[in-house]
């Protein structure tokens, strides 16, 4: 190592950049009695996922716990005031996949927040890298699940809640619940969070389209529930719902990729540049609404012909879609569904079942659904 530079001075730890000849590393030096969960660090230090920071070394030196990890060449998502919905969904999907992989090792983050998700530009796309595993304590309060305030250890369901809050922050540019009150007040506020409230507040911003709001609804329903049991079962289920939401708002894969490229070449490139120049993010972050409007105005002035061509194409596709939807309205799956239901709920003896002869005698004399555990009685 050729030297080190203080990157960030925090209440819990100081972060130093260590410059080497071959690679750059980061040193996180804990202070004021703070520490990390050694078991979690041991597990993630042997994981080499793309979406996870690579821990090189950890331990205690001069009484201070420390972690050394490979420098991630990107910017934290906290530097963005807000992201386009499509981009936020893409980012969340990547984070969810990393968490799903770690979940199988029994590792949970426990402190998901915008500061712990790094966006790394790669050509026209970006990848997310999760940092700061192994928190001891509650972490960023604005993202902590209600049960965490009651002292419960982090698990997949609490991380899912945090992801909901993270998504909201990425889209709206503000925390749904600001950590500017007492612990108890914050706990009470967090316990009162309801999915509908997020939709309402997003609607109030006026920057999210109705289509986007509707696509986000299932996500809030599965993420920001007070009761952990009411949240998504795991990250795979989240991934499925994210895919559906992306499909609804993205306008097709090409449009999604274009949105990502625009983001990478625009806002992300700008933040990377500012970070290299050490410019604070707050001043640099663009306002989404004004930015979009400005882009729209320029586009209209510059490409009036192009705009009308796209409108034309859009209309044609709309007509085609309507025709196809009407044409393919009856795929027959509902009919099959009705048959399945009828068969399952039949109260008549199920004479036509395909049952092997040796099993048949043990079956009840009516439909399986009726064959319920009947109480043992002693007359």
């Amino acid at each position, binding site marked *: 190592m050729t030297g080190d530079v203080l990157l960030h001075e925090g209440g819990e730890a100081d972060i130093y950049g260590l410059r080497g000849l071959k690679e750059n590393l980061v040193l996180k030096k804990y202070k004021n009695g703070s520490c990390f969960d050694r078991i979690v660090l041991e597990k993630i230090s042997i994981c080499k996922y793309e979406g996870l920071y690579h821990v090189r070394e950890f331990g205690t030196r001069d009484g201070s716990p420390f972690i050394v990890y490979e420098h991630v060449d990107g910017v934290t998502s906290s530097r963005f005031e807000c992201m386009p919905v499509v981009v936020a969904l893409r980012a969340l999907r990547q984070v969810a996949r990393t968490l799903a992989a770690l979940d199988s090792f029994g590792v949970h983050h426990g402190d998901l927040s915008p500061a712990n998700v790094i966006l790394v530009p790669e050509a026209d796309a970006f990848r997310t890298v999760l940092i700061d595993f192994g928190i001891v304590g509650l972490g960023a309060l604005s993202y902590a699940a209600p049960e965490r305030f009651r002292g419960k250890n982090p698990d997949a369901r609490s991380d899912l809640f945090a992801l909901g809050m993270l998504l909201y922050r990425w889209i709206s540019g503000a925390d749904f619940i600001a950590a500017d009150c007492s612990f108890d007040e914050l706990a009470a506020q967090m316990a009162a969070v309801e999915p509908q409230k997020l939709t309402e507040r997003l609607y109030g911003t006026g920057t999210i389209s109705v289509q986007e709001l509707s696509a986000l609804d*299932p996500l809030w*329903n*599965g993420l920001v529930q007070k009761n952990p*049991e009411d949240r998504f*079962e795991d990250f795979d*289920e989240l991934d*499925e*719902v994210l*895919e*559906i939401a*992306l*499909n*609804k708002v993205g306008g097709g894969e090409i449009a999604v990729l274009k949105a990502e490229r625009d983001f990478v070449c625009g806002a992300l490139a700008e933040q990377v540049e500012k970070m290299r120049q050490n410019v604070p993010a707050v001043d640099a972050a663009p306002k989404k609404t004004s930015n979009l409007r400005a882009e729209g105005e320029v586009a209209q002035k510059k490409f009036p012909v192009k705009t009308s*061509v796209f409108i*034309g*194409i859009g209309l*044609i*596709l709309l007509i*085609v*879609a309507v025709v*196809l939807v009407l044409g*393919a309205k009856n*795929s*027959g*799956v*509902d009919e*099959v*569904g009705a048959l*399945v*239901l009828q068969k*399952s*709920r039949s*109260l008549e003896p199920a004479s036509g*079942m*395909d*049952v*092997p002869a040796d*099993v048949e005698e*043990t*079956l009840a*004399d*009516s439909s*399986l*659904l*009726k064959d*319920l*555990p*009947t*109480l043992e*009685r002693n*007359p």
Partner: protein
Amino acid sequence: MPGRVCKIVGAVPAVLVVVTLCLTACLDDFAGRGNAALRVGDYDRAVANFSKALDYDPANRDARYGLALSYYAIAEESEHLRIPTFDLWNRAVREFKILSNIDSSGSINANYSTCLFYLARASLSQNSSANVLPLLNQSILLDSANYFSYNLKGLLLGRSGLKMDVEEAKKIFIHIVTHEPAFISAYVNLGNIYWDEGDIESAWDIWSMGLEKSPNDRTLVHWTQVAEDSLKAKVLSGEL
């Protein structure tokens, strides 16, 4: 040059339309094949085709419903064969849960509700003390005409031994026989509760009612006779 630009611009919509048509046709094809496979009971092929359709369009409601129904059918088939089904129903419920995010029309609720019932039952088979009441409540909420879920809930409450739960169980069974008089299990189970409480008259009443609806039900024939004999014995001994 402007002519060439016009030609290119004119060709773009046509190309897009063709591409869209091809993709949609392909998608419909997979969903259609899945549906055909589901109809004939080739569930693995149905799953494969619906999954392919979803690869193209994850929000394709019909393909997702088809996939959920395929998982449902696979699990139900295993029920017939008395193979452990907990994981299979779990998978089917999970698919219905995802489907419910893209179809809020209510058209899937009845099957989703039945699926939850089956999962509750499979959970009990795996662990007889499992708390499946939340599953059953959700099932009933989705479809208030799912008397199978009511029935199982009644059984569980009746088994709890708490007076309040037993009374609730009675109400549930009465609700079932009132709304679906052909649901014979409910007569049996309600009669069981009365019998366990020592109320032989009520047990006989309800079992007899069930027997009227289903004269060949061996359980009802047996227990109605037992109750009748008990009542006669009580009359003869002067207890009644």
